[in-house]
């Protein structure tokens, strides 16, 4: 069964450092997403991406964050200067169709900011 893969599974970084989280969505999917879950809190939407541009973003997704699809397979989330409160599990997801909520999630990348 096709799946969304994410790397790294766990990254530890110092506050202020840049972090790039990588995702390989399912190959025939056109819509891509990042969600995050701070420990003990809800899974929160960050951003959706379609046709090489952001289609929707949340208030959390400020100028510190950016997304990119640098080639035909990867979808990345960059945090420019990490803060302690960025520590969370970051989930990538993809979907074949828009606005159906039928997302396929990766296993997540745990980011720890020290």
């Amino acid at each position, binding site marked *: 069964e096709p*799946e*969304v893969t994410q790397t790294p599974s766990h990254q530890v970084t110092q506050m202020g450092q840049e972090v790039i989280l990588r995702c390989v969505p399912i190959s025939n999917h056109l*819509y891509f*997403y990042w*969600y995050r879950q701070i420990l003990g*809190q*809800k*899974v*929160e*939407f960050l951003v*959706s991406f379609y046709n090489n541009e952001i*289609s*929707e973003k*949340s208030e959390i997704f400020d100028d510190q964050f950016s997304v990119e699809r640098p080639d035909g397979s990867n979808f990345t989330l960059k945090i420019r200067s990490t803060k302690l409160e960025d520590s969370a599990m970051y*989930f990538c*997801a993809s979907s074949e169709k*828009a*606005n*159906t*909520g*039928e*997302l*396929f*999630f*990766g*296993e*997540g990348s745990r980011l720890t900011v020290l």
Partner: protein
Amino acid sequence: AQSVSQHNHHVILSEAASLELGCNYSYGGTVNLFWYVQYPGQHLQLLLKYFSGDPLVKGIKGFEAEFIKSKFSFNLRKPSVQWSDTAEYFCAVTQRDSSYKLIFGSGTRLLVRP
């Protein structure tokens, strides 16, 4: 703002017991409703969904959910749980035709004792 509430944070059942997990949402417009499940060490995956039509929807592994519009509820049920149902269950909502984002509840951890 839209929100999703899950009433039970932790549920412990014995095998063969019946399960009902509550979910309420706050949004007056038309919504799509979902239950996602995350088994230990695995990614979030779709359990079932409701878009329109019969308000009683059936998903994988014997789960079902009932949409009651007047109560803004979408409770998950299973008549007889198994040890393998041990997982975290998330209710989620999208606003139909206006947004890409899934709004998640806080999740319910289910432990099924053999």
